[in-house]
């Protein structure tokens, strides 16, 4: 059993696969930070704020950071993110960006409300940052060293396996929480219906966009039991994604549809999942490079020889 596990865990993968996942995850995190920069800068201004309730790695703080320090972190994070995506000075920029992203998002979560849309990104960045081989391809480090791309190896496969396990664990824990707090009654649909109503109502009362599908869906009570059962099943059977390509693709499709449903009924966006990047570590992500070649064909050999 242990040998089988180790064989699965340390299966080799092409360096391009790990590199593409690095670019996708890092690129997503970078765009996310830049897109939400005004929000993060705004949170950096929450000085002497009575809501301050630090979580995670910032548990030790007894008061908010000074505005200058918080703003410096918010600005430094995307700078490190550019280096992370480009694979420049990877052994420094990898951990630096992963830690800065974690700190900036943790700080934002330390004012009374923990969000659940960035957990996987933060965890994936940390895992990738622990992998020196993540910059073996598609990186400025690799270009500078002028050496061929190494062959497939376990050092490229293991970080991807850990990312996949983290993804699966997040879904299972989410499903477990529903059973823990709501019991099997959760699958009966009433809890889900109430949440759809409550979440949209809260948005409506605070002048925020709410789902136009909420009202028609809530009129049809019978659709909620199958939706609740399906949601719970998708979360609890996530480990199936670790067994074989067909099961993996089926589970990813189901999980993606689950997030589409959340978006449609509750206007809650999980962009990391909806863009498919959360699942990239489970897929032959290097095939994206083939699309790049289709878009930009290789130069004509005759023109090179001239």
């Amino acid at each position: 059993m242990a040998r089988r596990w180790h064989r699965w865990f340390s299966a080799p993968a092409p360096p391009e696969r790990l590199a593409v996942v690095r670019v996708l995850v890092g690129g997503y995190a970078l765009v996310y930070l830049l897109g939400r920069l005004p929000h993060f800068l705004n949170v950096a201004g929450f000085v002497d704020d009575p809501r301050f309730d630090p979580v995670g790695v910032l548990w030790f703080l007894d008061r908010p950071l000074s505005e200058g320090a918080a703003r410096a972190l918010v600005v430094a994070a995307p700078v490190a993110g550019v280096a992370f995506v480009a694979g420049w000075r990877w052994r420094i920029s990898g951990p630096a960006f992963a830690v800065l992203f974690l700190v900036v998002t943790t700080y934002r979560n330390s004012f009374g409300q923990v969000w659940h849309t960035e957990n996987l990104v933060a965890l994936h960045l940390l895992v990738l940052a622990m992998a020196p081989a993540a910059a073996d391809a598609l990186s400025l480090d690799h270009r500078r060293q002028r050496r061929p791309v190494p062959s497939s190896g376990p050092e490229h496969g293991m970080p991807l396996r850990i990312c996949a396990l983290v993804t699966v664990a997040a879904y299972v824990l989410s499903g477990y929480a529903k059973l823990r707090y709501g019991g099997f009654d959760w699958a009966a649909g009433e809890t889900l219906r109430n949440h759809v109503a409550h979440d949209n109502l809260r948005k409506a009362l605070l002048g925020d966009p709410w789902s136009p599908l909420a009202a028609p869906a809530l009129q049809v009570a019978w659709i909620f039991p199958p939706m609740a059962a399906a949601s719970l099943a998708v979360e609890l059977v996530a480990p199936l994604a670790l067994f074989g390509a067909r099961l993996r693709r089926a589970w990813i499709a189901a999980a993606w549809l689950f997030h589409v449903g959340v978006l449609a009924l509750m206007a809650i966006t999980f962009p990391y999942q909806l863009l498919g990047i959360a699942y990239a570590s489970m897929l032959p992500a290097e095939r994206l490079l083939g699309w790049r070649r289709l878009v930009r064909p290789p130069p004509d050999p005759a023109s090179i020889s001239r």
Partner: protein
Amino acid sequence: MRTRVAYATLVVAAVVMLAPVVVDRDSYPGSTYPMFARDRGHISAVATAVGIDEHGEVLRLTPNLIGGSDEVVLAVETVLKAVRAGPAAADDLCERVARRVTRAGLPAVRIEIRVETLDAVRWFTDDDRTPLQVTRHAECPVEG
């Protein structure tokens, strides 16, 4: 990534993800994933701040005006925390909201920190949008 480092990373990731579940306290990046897990019933108590204009009409305020950020959940939590902390905290929040409303130039003459209790499902299915109950926790003028 060497094999030992890979296994160490895996163990750390497992600890980070499981610790909040074991101690039953939500955290980040590990989480108990409490959202949508508990049945909250169809009656919703929404903590909010509203503006009242000179005719006594209610003006709905945005999350930014209430919580100083564009996040709905943070705005609700901000009001909820202030209400739970007592009258002084609710008054303090009321004044902060009033200052933002003044800057935004809304035609509100006063702000109310309140908890509105509504039947969330009926709000959508029966178009019955009357609150079952409104509890006012603080009230303050908007300097004009």
